[in-house]
């Protein structure tokens, strides 16, 4: 019971802290003081109180899509191991449900973007669908390879393979971390895949899809986006932290990994601009390569597979 509460509290608070940490890192690198770390949360709470404007072409789908997307991402969070090391819900094959719930959220947000009848949102929707199609096989291969290496079938026990002490375990951890970090960039819509700070259509994928959302919808979309960053970092943390340490140490390790990921995203955003749109697929293909390499390492003797 305590575990569930801890995991739930972490999922409610840590995503905002990660967003805030990323913004703080960017500010510090630029020589500024930066907004408070919880500023994204304050913004979301403010938006919940604001009024809403909907386009004239929009149907009820536009109103419902952010809600159902958010609920889908929240339920996907139930399947991911949190700071306690175990997920709230786990069963054989849960990584499939996890990925497909995120896909449901993406489907609805893309369709809602097309509902506005604007070419900006259409552009963002097209790019979003395209980029996710490129990384989906890689994500599945990364997750399936960790399952193969651990000889298990659920996400809650994926760390067993990486920490079994074999020679290739460190390389596997590195590859999985790289793949999951790129997933954070794609799904969390950060540079160099997508620019969260501008509103120019040349650089936008996610921001342009939500151009017409306002009020409570925008708060829900913001939380869903933060939650996606948190989820993929959590999976990486579950892989990185050894499974047989005391609970407090485990939770501390997970928070440390999340912190490291936030700093890494922040630094990457400070150093790079959005790469050319035609080069983004090449970057995203690295996820597929990580997946394939990880699979072969898992097959050839990493872990207990």
């Amino acid at each position: 019971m305590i575990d569930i509460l801890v995991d739930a509290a972490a999922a409610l608070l840590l995503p905002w802290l990660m967003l805030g940490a990323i913004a703080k890192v960017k500010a510090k690198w630029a020589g500024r003081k930066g907004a408070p770390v919880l500023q994204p949360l304050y913004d979301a709470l403010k938006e919940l109180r604001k009024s809403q404007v909907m386009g004239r072409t929009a149907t009820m789908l536009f109103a419902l899509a952010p809600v159902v997307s958010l609920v889908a991402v929240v339920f996907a969070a139930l399947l991911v191991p949190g700071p306690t090391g175990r997920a709230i819900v786990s069963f054989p094959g849960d990584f499939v449900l996890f990925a497909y719930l995120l896909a449901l959220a993406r489907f609805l947000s893309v369709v809602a973007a097309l509902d506005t009848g604007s070419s900006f949102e259409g552009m963002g929707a097209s790019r979003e669908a395209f980029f996710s199609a490129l990384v989906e096989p890689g994500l599945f291969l990364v997750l399936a390879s960790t399952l193969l290496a651990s000889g298990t079938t659920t996400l809650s026990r994926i760390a067993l393979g990486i920490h079994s002490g074999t020679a290739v375990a460190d390389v596997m951890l590195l590859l999985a971390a790289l793949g999951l970090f790129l997933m954070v960039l794609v799904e969390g819509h950060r540079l160099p895949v997508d620019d969260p700070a501008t509103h120019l259509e040349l650089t936008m994928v996610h921001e342009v899809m939500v151009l017409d959302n306002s009020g409570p919808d925008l708060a829900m979309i913001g939380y869903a986006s933060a939650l996606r960053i948190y989820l993929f970092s959590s999976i990486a943390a579950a892989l990185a932290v050894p499974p047989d340490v005391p609970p407090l140490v485990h939770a501390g390790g997970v928070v440390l990994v999340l912190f490291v990921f936030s700093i890494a995203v922040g630094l990457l955003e400070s150093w790079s601009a959005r790469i050319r749109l035609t080069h983004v697929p090449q970057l995203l293909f690295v996820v597929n390569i990580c997946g394939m390499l990880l699979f072969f390492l898992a097959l050839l003797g990493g872990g207990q597979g």
Partner: protein
Amino acid sequence: MTHYLYALVLYVFVGIASFAARRDAKGYLIGGAGILAAILVGTDSIPVLLSGVAQTYTLRLPPPIGTAVLVLDPLSAFFGMVVAVLALPAAFYGAGYLAGRRGDDSAHAVAGATGFHWFFYVLLVVSMLAVPLGQSVLPFLFVWELMTISSFFLVIFDAEEPATRSAGVHYLITMHIGMLFLVAGFLTLWNGSGSPNFAAYPAYLRNHETVTPVVLLLLFVGFALKAGFIPLHTWLPKAHPVAPSHVSGLMSGVMIKLGVYGILRLVFLFGPFSKGVAFLVLAISIVTAVLGVLFAIGQHDLKRLLAYHSVENIGIIGCGIGVGMIGESAGMPLVALLGFSGALLHVLNHSIFKSLLFFGAGSILRATGERLVDRLGGLARRMPLTAIMFLIGSIAITGLPPFNGFVSEFLIYLGVIHGFGAAATTSVVALAFVVASLALVGALALLCFTKVFGIVFLGSARGDATSHAGESNPAMFVSMGVLALLCAGIGILPEPLVVLIGGAVTQLLKAQVGSGLATLPGSLELNAMVAPLATVSRFLLFFVAAALVTAGARAFLVRRGGARRAETWGCGYAKPTSRMQYTGDSFARPLLSLVNPRAARGDEQAAATGLFPTTRTVSTHAEDPFEAHLIRPAVGSLVGFFRRFSWIQNGNLQLYILYGLLFLIGILVWTMGSGR
């Protein structure tokens, strides 16, 4: 098994009686009879699925057919149920779709006449119900051919269009090429073993190892042509768009599954097969699934797009069959159970949501007269119920929870994960290919269906076609509604159905002669299949409840904060028009240019030139590369070769009489010569 046969007789009787009914009432009559027939089929099939005991019936027919052995085993029962149940919405939808259609006085009166149309519809359903029963060569081939002929007449219903006629003839010829392969395979078996009954063939093939690959390949090609595996799929995107929508739904949903039935019958009759055969099946299925969805993304015609998605889903079913075969060859009963169960469940699921999508496309076609996606838009405000049901179908076909597409794909993924424990490295690598391909196919299907749904139903109208659109008539949207409810029902509460299918697969694996499985799937494996689904089901029920609660909370917040409507943000453009919206082509362009860089170069010709550019016209068409580079050159050279002999047919009656005379003289000489 008598109830099943009574159902067939009932259908035939009603089919003939429908000639007497009023034109608009024929469909309802057949639908009503279909409900009774489905119940009859169910009373025979469900016990067989539950118990696994096959029922046999011997029919004495006049020569040359002789005795026909009809067997209702779990596989036949499952496919019989699928046909019987899916024929119902198609009949009622067809009644609504054809309502108000004026009589046909054209030269194509037989094909275009509603009476004959419904008669051939009944004939198609009867032949599809009879195919799973046949276990001897001649009755099976007879019913298979009946299926082809009746569907041909259904496809050319709009025969006044030349495109329909040519697509129909193409379809007929392709089906007969498949028939050729089936006849070759079956006749080899019959001739070699001396018996026309399928039951004798496994033993015969075991004694004649050299013939086995050839015969199996012939039969596989024949069935794969019907199912629509690549590269034998070219007839699908031609025939399904031109047929009326209830026929498209029936053909795409049910008829191509009978090709899958044939392949499954081969697997369970002659199996278990080695790893290599399983890899071959997987390779073909993966290629089919990936290429099917890639071709679909490039299409602008709504029904052609849906036809390519049928090809993709046949690939997914094939992946399930391949995973099951790997499970058999690796001696892992759980993997075999999961693979085959996932394939069978996907057969049912695809029938449901593909019919739903085709019916939606038919409603759109009937309301707007337009099939091209880029000429539509904003239909959700004019046809809200159709939009909701099309959305449900789109989410289901993408395989997303909480609808039924997710459940069957989940079973296949689960089979793959359990299969990772296999001893053979090659099997594990093949399974990894399955995972990556299914993930890719799912993501591409998401791209395609967000495009279709978004461009057709959302935004604002891109032309005038939608200005007179209205909601579909009750028969149409009730049939769609029933299918949508089935999608949701199977998605959220799949356990009873999965238990039924799991039991059937276990019985089929047990009945395989010389099973390669050391242990058959037992209650432990069945539980390992159903328990995760139970968790998923509870999870999704909570998900739906949470979504409703959160929607209520959002509505409360919006009412408190205030809401108003305004113009969509256009970044300050002075005169935005609906033609500035994204089109289907633009939505798919990033992916298509990655996959086929040559296609992107066509845009240069469309670019505006000069200081004061005038109107330019651009046309894009997506051609099937297999048809353009494989079929058409082959057919072309064949026709060219035969054209050299065209001088024989010169239309001169006197010359034809001379041919006849020469033939008679030749026969007389030969008979007298051999008589001596």
